[in-house]
């Protein structure tokens, strides 16, 4: 198994020539519907004598001319598609394949594919070089024109649509005496009661364990954690911590330096 990133250059060495063909969208959609081995049609190459340009034309299979999604049965994909041949131009176009599923397939040009369990991720192989460019155009016909018109109409429809309603929408919000959320909230408040001052030592323990996890805390978060009244908590904090007014950690409490022992800091334990 070659390592990741290694490009298989067999195609380049064999100098396999391929064609790059630009195909209209509807045709590629029809091709995607091909069944069986994937036969989609026939390619006919006519060479006029020695000199003349080769005429290439593609004929779509009958069964693939039916277009889904269009109710009008008279509209179907055309069958004849002459190819317009072009030169590659100065550019050098190579074809490479990427096998991303984790399964590796060794393929030289067109031979049967051998699939082996691929341990590595993508396998990249150079398949060949483009020798001819072509454009697949449909032979102009009535049905093609109708097809095109339908397509344009589809595209012309706006994405968003304004619709007038007859009646008022009543299904979203109904007036309620008191929202469930509110009820829960009040209940919780009653049940938990006011926060009681616990032992100072206990509070300190809780604070230190909290500050072990994070360096900076908002006062609200500390109240949440320790469940102490704010004033009491603040007193304790003034003892062991400092309040950051400026800087990146604004309005946060942190332990005094002598109480901290974070990694990379000098430690003095309390």
């Amino acid at each position: 198994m070659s390592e990741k990133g290694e490009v298989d250059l067999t195609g380049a060495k064999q100098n396999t020539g391929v064609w790059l063909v630009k195909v209209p969208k509807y045709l590629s959609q029809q091709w995607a519907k091909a069944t069986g081995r994937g036969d989609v049609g026939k390619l006919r190459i006519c060479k006029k004598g020695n000199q003349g340009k080769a005429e290439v034309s593609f004929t779509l299979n009958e069964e693939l001319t039916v277009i889904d999604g269009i109710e009008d049965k008279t509209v179907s994909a055309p069958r004849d598609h002459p190819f317009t041949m072009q030169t590659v131009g100065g550019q050098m176009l190579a074809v490479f394949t990427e096998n991303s599923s984790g399964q590796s397939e060794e393929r030289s040009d067109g031979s049967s594919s051998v699939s082996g369990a691929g341990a590595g991720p993508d396998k990249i192989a150079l398949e060949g070089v483009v020798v001819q460019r072509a454009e697949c155009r449909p032979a102009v016909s009535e049905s093609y024109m109708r097809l095109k018109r339908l397509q344009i109409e589809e595209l012309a429809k706006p994405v968003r649509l304004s619709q007038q309603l007859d009646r008022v929408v009543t299904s979203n919000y109904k007036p309620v005496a008191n929202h469930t959320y509110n009820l829960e909230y009040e209940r919780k408040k009653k049940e938990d009661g006011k926060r009681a001052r616990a032992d100072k030592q206990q509070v300190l323990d809780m604070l230190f364990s909290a500050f072990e996890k994070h360096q900076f805390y908002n006062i609200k978060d500390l109240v949440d954690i320790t469940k102490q009244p704010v004033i009491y908590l603040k007193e304790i904090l003034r003892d062991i911590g400092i309040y950051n007014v400026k800087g990146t950690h604004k309005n946060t409490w942190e332990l005094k330096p002598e109480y901290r022992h974070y990694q990379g800091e000098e430690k003095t334990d309390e």
Partner: protein
Amino acid sequence: MTSLGSSSSSATEYTVRVPKNTSKKYNLMAFNAGDKVNCSTWTQARMERDMSGRRIYGDEETADGAAGSEFGKKQREEARRKKFGIVKREFKVEDQPWILKVNGKAGKRFKGLKKGGVTENASYYIFTQCPDGAFEAFPVHGWYNFTPQAKHRTLTAEEAEEEWGRRNKVVNHFSIMLQRRFREQERGGDDDDDENEKSGKKKKKGGGRGGDLRIHDLEEDLEMSSDDSDSSLGDDGESKTKSKKDTGKGKAKKKKKRKSSDKEALEDSDDGDYEGLEVDYMSDESSSDEEPEKGKISKGEDHPKGIDEASESEEESEEEKPNEEEAKEEEEEEEGKKTPVQTEKKKKKDSSGESESSDDSDIDGETASALFMKKRTPPKRGGRGSAGSSRTGSRPGTPSIDSASTSNTLRAAASKLEQGKRPTPGPSADSPAAKRLKMEPSSQSPAPSGKSTPQPPSGKSTPSSSDVQLTEEAVRRYLIRKPMTTKDLLKKFQTKRTGLSSEQTVNVLAQILKRLNPERKNVNDKMHFYLTE
């Protein structure tokens, strides 16, 4: 797959198949026509995605639970982002560029950027012919445009703009990258000594190139220091002896760059400050500066200048070759320092000052540079005013100045020699190198020792009117009579009288001094030679 013979033209029919179950995704690799890429020449290739964009899209990782973390920071950040409507784009691996490396480390590198909009309106298919004659069509998943990546250094945008502004002034474009490389090395704290070694020799040639971002204006010529002379030489060399320079260029540039870059900064600020300022010849550099400038000014044109300098550079190259063999670090450094200095017109003043100091400081291994300077200065003898003194173009152009300049260089050479002698009884590595250097040039020039009458002993300051031949005898006579500096010695053997070129004079004199091995003594801070019978 059916073959139908049809009417007049031959037509064949092939079945087209679109395989359904392939897990392979076909992509296109497009190269530019100008790059002339041929896939069949690739022996091996590696290609992988360029993931450098990931950190831009990825979230900033902050230490969790450690110092500096806040309680609930992540939630707060997320809430903040939502409030401002900041939407982060996903990092899609599929859209990342490819990095293609061909033929291993030494081969080419390509970057393949995905071309957008390929599959939006039309689909591309790759038609390959199977052995059974049918065509198989595979949809193209993506189109990547591959461009070669430059391995050589390129200028950044700011630097490019700078250079663009100087494009009319810079003759030596090769130096630009050299300087940049130099700067990088300096920043990286590279050891320049080795480079200096190699480049020092070449520096002479390349020196002009490396540092020279000068215009061949008269003013600048006047301001030229020894560096300038080098640069002018370099320039000429450029125009005339490209091949020579090319070899030396690389190395010279390195050293020059450093100097030139240093000098450049200085020179910019000093431009015009020293116009009309008269300065005594204190250093070898200045004298050498004068000479090259003189040569330039006298010509006043690039063409003749070029010829002059070409000849100079040729001489230099000759010198350089032996130097290279010697590979004296210090010499190189000296050279390097000097050449960039020279190239900078504005830096003339500075360079002359620098050269002075450098002369005095780097005594060891200065011989080579001294030699170089010697060589440089003699050709330019014709006529420039002191580099330091007059920028505006007043050129004393007197022989005394010439001899002064040459003597300066000689003095440097001599002092180096001395240094070489002092630490070791025998000639040190530096001195032999210097001496050898001197030998070689002198060997090239007609042997003066074979020449005729030794000059009658005369006072330092009194120029002899009779024909003077530069022989050992003559030098010995002078030195016995009275201690003299190299400058003085050179004054004695003026080119007009001895019939030798200034470079030759310097060389020969250096040789002679080596042979004589005179004693030294410091008078008025100047190194004097003397012999005792």
